Structure formats: C-alpha cells, structure tokens
C-alpha cells in the first residue's frame, strides 16, 4: 500500500500586518435619538458607544473587504501573488451564494487562492486566525489573508434600541505568514449551541439579542477561556501588553478587564466607543487603531477573544506585528 505523503509546514505562524476600513458616515447618539426612544446618556451608560460608522450603499461587503485587505497587504509587505489562502469572516452576507472570499481575493490580485467564507458570528476573526495558523503550520498555505467584514446595519431593527444603537459596519483584516518563533498561540475555543437563540435572526430577518443572557455568558463563562488561552500559550496576565477582546459592549470589556486582573500598564482596546460593534471586523480594527495611535507597539503581546452568535468563542495570545 502506498502511503499518502504530507507536506511540511512552518514551525509557527504570526500576523504580519493589519488593515481596516471604516465607513464614511459617522452616526452619533444624538442622531439616533431623533429616530428612536433613546439618548446619549442612556447609550453611553449601557454600552459605552459614543458614535459608530454606518455603511452607505456603495460601501458593500466586498468593497469594504477589499479596502481593508489591501491595507493589510501593504502593512505586511506581502505581495498578492504570495498569498495562497483567503478567509472572509462575515455573518452578514446579503446572499449566501456565492460566498465573497473568492471575489475579494480576485479584486486584490490574489490569483487562485484557497478562498472561502467563515461564519462564526462575532468570533469569526479569531476562528479564522486558528484556521490560518494551522494551514501555515501544515504546509497548505504560506500566507493567508483574513478579512472580517460586516454590514450589521442591513439586519438591525431600527426601532429596537437594544440592538440598533450597538451594531455597526466595517471591515478589518490581517495577513498571517510563517514564523520560526510562533506569533499566534494555541486557540482556546468552543461553542455553546444550547444558547443558539441568544443572538439570532429569526422570523423577522432582523437581529435580536437577549442582552442579559449574553452579558452573563460573556462575563462569567469567557473568563475561563481567556485564562486558558494564556495558560496554553505559556504566559500570564502580567505578560499581556494589550487586551483586545471583541468590541461588543464597553461594560463587558471593563468587566472582563477587572476579573482578569491585568497589570496597570496593559492597554485595553476600547475602539467600540467610536466604532460600535462591528462583529468579525472588531478585533483587527481595534488593533490597527492601537498601532496607529502608538498605544500598541510591534512586539507587544496581545490577548484577543472573539465571541458571539452561535454562541461561539475563541481566544488567543498574539504577537503584535
């Protein structure tokens, strides 16, 4: 019997660059309070959002993904020809057929990559990172482009203040490549399918969220996931320079931050304040912003955690490129 041969991959994978796209239109809390029963004080105290970006008609998922992906390629110094896999993480495709990963790759001049869409809700970026890291380590890809792109405003109920003030649009991307020294730690991931109805689009075609249930899940269950991600990467909370969880709700971020007990020097991503909740796009957008502002530096260790509809969750320790 002839044995099947395997390829040899890289010893590790790391992120080489981030890129983001923020839609042009800024929507303030005051603007929202003109059309729904809410106000700036209510929104800021409940979810910590001051403004968010809403995509216009021409800012489609593909256009936003191409813009973010192009920036990530430029930041990483990787030529499109050297990318052999593209993962498009999104939960808000207008039509599920076809998936948009191949078109985004084509538009960026990436020829014939393995390309597909991945829906793990707001955990999509971190799930994609694990898939990319494994592809590079197994030899099935050398460079992977991940793009999280969402148009949540297509699926919000404009009269539901529990969701309409939170969800927003945007795209965030990262290029992942081979590394002798791993820059992406083991994933701590999983799902709680018994709570599949906690965040769902059922019947109405609009997103509905059981706010208290999600808050409880995020602030209790996920603490152990964050601890597992650090333990399996061989680091402790004192080693973490940047804490960048999914930007779901500022109060969840603050609660996690308090429960984990980070040192004072740890920078916490609070991009939600000006961006809202952009689901699979939120973590790369937040990390790109921290790098641009100088709050995060190349070589820093970051702890990331995506979590959302499914319910799904995934956390990793990363080296900032």
């Amino acid at each position: 019997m002839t044995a099947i041969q395997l390829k040899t991959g890289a010893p590790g994978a790391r992120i080489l660059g981030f890129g983001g796209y923020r839609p042009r239109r800024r929507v303030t809390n005051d603007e929202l309070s003109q059309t729904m029963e809410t106000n700036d004080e209510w929104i800021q105290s409940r979810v910590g959002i001051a403004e968010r970006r809403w995509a216009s008609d021409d800012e489609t998922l593909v256009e936003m993904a191409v813009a973010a992906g192009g920036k990530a390629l430029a930041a990483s110094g990787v030529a499109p020809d050297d990318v052999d896999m593209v993962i498009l993480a999104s939960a808000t495709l207008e039509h599920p057929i076809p998936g948009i990963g191949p078109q985004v790759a084509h538009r960026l001049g990436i020829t014939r990559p393995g390309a597909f869409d991945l829906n793990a809700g707001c955990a999509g970026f971190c799930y994609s990172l694990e898939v990319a890291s494994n592809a590079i380590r197994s030899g099935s890809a050398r460079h992977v482009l991940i793009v999280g792109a969402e148009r949540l405003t297509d699926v919000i109920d404009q009269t539901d203040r529990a969701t309409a003030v939170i969800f927003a649009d945007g795209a965030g991307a990262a290029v992942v490549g081979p590394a002798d020294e791993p820059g992406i730690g083991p994933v701590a991931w999983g799902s709680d399918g018994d709570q599949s109805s906690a965040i769902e689009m059922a019947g109405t075609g609009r997103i509905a969220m059981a706010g208290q249930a999600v808050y409880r899940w995020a602030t209790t269950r996920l603490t152990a996931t964050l601890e597992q991600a650090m333990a399996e990467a061989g680091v402790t909370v004192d080693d973490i320079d940047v804490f960048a969880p999914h930007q779901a709700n500022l109060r969840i971020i603050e609660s996690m931050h308090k429960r984990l007990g980070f040192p004072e020097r740890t920078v916490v991503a609070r991009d939600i304040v000006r961006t809202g909740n952009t689901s699979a796009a939120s973590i790369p957008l937040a990390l790109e912003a921290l790098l641009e502002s100088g709050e995060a530096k190349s070589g820093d260790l970051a702890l990331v955690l995506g979590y959302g509809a499914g319910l799904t969750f995934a956390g990793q320790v990363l080296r900032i490129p």
Partner: protein
Amino acid sequence: MSEDIQAGLAEILEEVAGVAPADATPEKSFTEDLDVDSLSMVEIATEVENKFGVAIPDDELANIKTVGDAISYITANRG
C-alpha cells in the same frame, strides 16, 4: 440571618453599582430607586452566586424588583 444577607447584598450593590450601603433597604426598587440597570442586575446575580452560593437564572432575575425580593430569594434558595 436576613440581616447577614442584607448586609452582604449591600456590599455587592456598593461594589457593582456604587449604591451607598445605607440605601440598600428592603423596600427599595433596584431600577426605580437605586438606578441599577439590567446589566448591573446580571453582575449582582453573579456576585450573589459567588457570595451566597445561590444561582439566579435570567427568568428568576426578571422577577426580582426590590432589595427585599432579592433577600427573600436568597433566603429561600440558600442550601
């Protein structure tokens, strides 16, 4: 017993929502009188479980309107 629970609950309320312990009296409504919102109620439920070993699921949490309701719930469900 219920004094211990009231005092413990007052500590939690101060920690989670900045409520002065003297204000945490049984007749007070969490939302109306103490300005505790729905997410802070979840935090309170988590801390009640940590402190008293009494879990308050979301559907039960919806029925707890006053400090007194919480004291009664904890008293009834404490092992």
